[in-house]
């Protein structure tokens, strides 16, 4: 079945076939990159990896409403698909995984998945959960103060919403009606702690009303629904109407990280059931139904991406390690850093 642009979900959102293919390519890249990274981990070449599997749609969907080179990104460690959408290359991701000197996030100093990229305006993140939330508010304040046309995106898991920093950051953003979008990737677990032990409510989005701005719930496995919610929030932000909290209901398919064994706390059939809504498949189906891909083109794209990833991995593996003494650098500003 083929449909006129205006009557499809994506058409209504103003997304072209090219947009969809680019989004799909990102989603597939994220999935294959995760798989490749996990293999590296099992082979003993990558001591620590953080799979995004299951979160691809909400990350790529929300990312797609952001403007590269203009907007500012504050992701968290789960956001492997997001940073690809923000412009990081698989090669850069592998530089981080192998802790190489040229890793744009930290030069191998931080664990992999602690994203940062100055040129792409991906702000360096740390391990302590939710600390980036007030940063997002502060950046948005500076944008508003200088009358700049930029929007801040800030991503976190539902676990992060329990931290005091989260509360304080959202409250400040609400008071000053800042151009910032808070995206909660609710996968119902903070490592092993189920949502019911984290909060007495069903929807994190309900908390937004305590800060004076809208909270919306979307199907985090539906890339277009996530895009749509983010697009509206982005328009609100640019129009000076203030923040939005978007809650994407999703699920993490693998362990919390490569160090985690989720069999100790999640029933297998729960994971199986969730896999029936695998966002990569759901998106692929959508594209098939709308005749945007078929089995052959999908397979072709997959093969292309796989080759790209293999090449990125191999090249990154050969890249230089940081020098031991370089550990002493950058505690404070060094004059060669630029402003």
């Amino acid at each position: 079945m083929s449909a006129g642009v205006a009557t499809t979900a994506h058409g209504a959102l103003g997304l072209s076939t090219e947009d969809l293919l680019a989004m799909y390519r990102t989603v597939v890249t994220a999935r294959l990159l995760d798989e490749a990274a996990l293999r590296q981990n099992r082979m003993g070449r990558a001591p620590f990896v953080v799979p995004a599997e299951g979160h691809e749609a909400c990350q790529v969907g929300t990312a797609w409403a952001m403007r590269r080179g203009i907007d500012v990104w504050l992701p968290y460690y789960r956001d492997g698909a997001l940073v690809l959408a923000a412009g990081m290359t698989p090669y850069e991701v592998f530089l981080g995984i192998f802790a190489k000197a040229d890793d744009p996030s930290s030069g191998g100093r931080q664990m992999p998945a602690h994203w940062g990229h100055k040129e792409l305006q991906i702000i360096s993140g740390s391990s302590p959960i939710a600390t980036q939330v007030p940063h997002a508010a502060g950046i948005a304040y500076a944008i508003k103060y200088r009358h700049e046309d930029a929007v801040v995106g800030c991503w976190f898991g539902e676990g992060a919403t329990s931290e005091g920093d989260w509360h304080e950051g959202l409250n400040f953003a609400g008071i000053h009606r800042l151009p910032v979008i808070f995206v909660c990737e609710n996968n119902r677990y903070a490592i092993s702690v189920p949502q019911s032990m984290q909060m007495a409510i069903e929807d994190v989005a309900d908390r937004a009303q305590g800060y004076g701005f809208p909270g919306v719930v979307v199907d985090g496995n539906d890339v277009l629904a996530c895009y749509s919610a983010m697009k509206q929030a982005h328009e609100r932000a640019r129009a000076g109407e203030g923040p939005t909290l978007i809650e994407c209901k999703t699920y993490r398919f693998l362990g919390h990280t490569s160090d985690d064994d989720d069999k100790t706390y999640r029933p297998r059939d729960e994971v199986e059931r969730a896999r029936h809504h695998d966002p990569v498949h759901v998106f692929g189906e959508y594209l098939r139904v709308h005749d945007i891909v078929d089995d052959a083109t999908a397979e072709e794209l997959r093969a292309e991406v796989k080759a790209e990833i293999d090449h990125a991995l191999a090249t990154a593996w050969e890249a230089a390690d940081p020098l031991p003494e370089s550990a002493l650098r950058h505690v404070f500003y060094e004059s060669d850093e630029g402003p």
Partner: protein
Amino acid sequence: MSASTSGVVDGEPRETNVVTAIRDALHDEMAADDRVILLGEDVANRGGVFRISAGWMDEFGPERVIDTPLAEAGIVGVAIGMALRGLLPVAEIQFADFIHPAFDQIVSEAARMRYRSNGAFGCPMVIRAPCGGGIHGALYHSQSIEAFYAHVPGLKVVMPSTPADAAGLLRSALRDPDPVLFLEHKKTYRAVKGPVPDGPFLVPLGSADVKRAGTDLTCISYGYALHTCVEAASRLFDDEGVSVEVVDVRSLAPLDTDTMFTSVRSTSRVMVVYEDNRTYGAGAEIASTIAETLMFDLDAPIVRIGGPDIPAMPFAAPLEHFFMEPEPDQVYRRMRDLAAF
């Protein structure tokens, strides 16, 4: 050599590692006293990220083994409330690096409750935090935090280096009427084995321990670095016959200056070795109190070895390795030089 130096020991010793010793001691305490409550992130459903409480949610019930929200100030603050109402909470901080959001609850509340109420209220509670580096934890899973907390009046801070000390100090911490920060060096968890007496023996808070006797110089350390020192001392003895006495601080606050001073008086040479960032680290207090008190007993300047003043341990292997001074080789060389001074 063992907790027996200053602990009350009963039962037959059993060989085990640090993480097991902690698990067993805490398990016994929970089994013996239903006022003891464990709370923290992932302690119930998953049994802790280090599996210390695996199975306990079923054994003791979910009211006693509580998976908390991801909120450290809340964990400590709730534990303070429990302590005020007759329970004996053990608050687990998943990694010591994540204790910082609870700084105010620990410093302003737990540690000051007794003083500010003129003795009317107290907070008998234990905060457990796995700390230290060398386990590829990178900047935020490798930190040493003892210097921040040892400075806080009203708080006791201990860091065991052996299984026996871990068990004995944990029991003492649980019996103490005041808050105790119990630091567990992650690199000792599985790497360090030793005998643990079988009964509910205690190692008193505030007591240092001579882990290796010696006559030529005193080396003061704690945590994982203690083992680096013992290893260097034993190599140095084998290589050159230099006899180093290694003192395990064990209790950062209160500090057992008697045991340290006795050793330093007998050897007249002293070095202090710690993993934390060197400047303003715990070794500064130890070196300083010795300098004030024993200056004229010393035949050589005090040597202080700490980690570099960079924000914790980077991830990349070459960088982590660079930080993990005090490495045995460095300690060995400085020991030899100090003995020869």
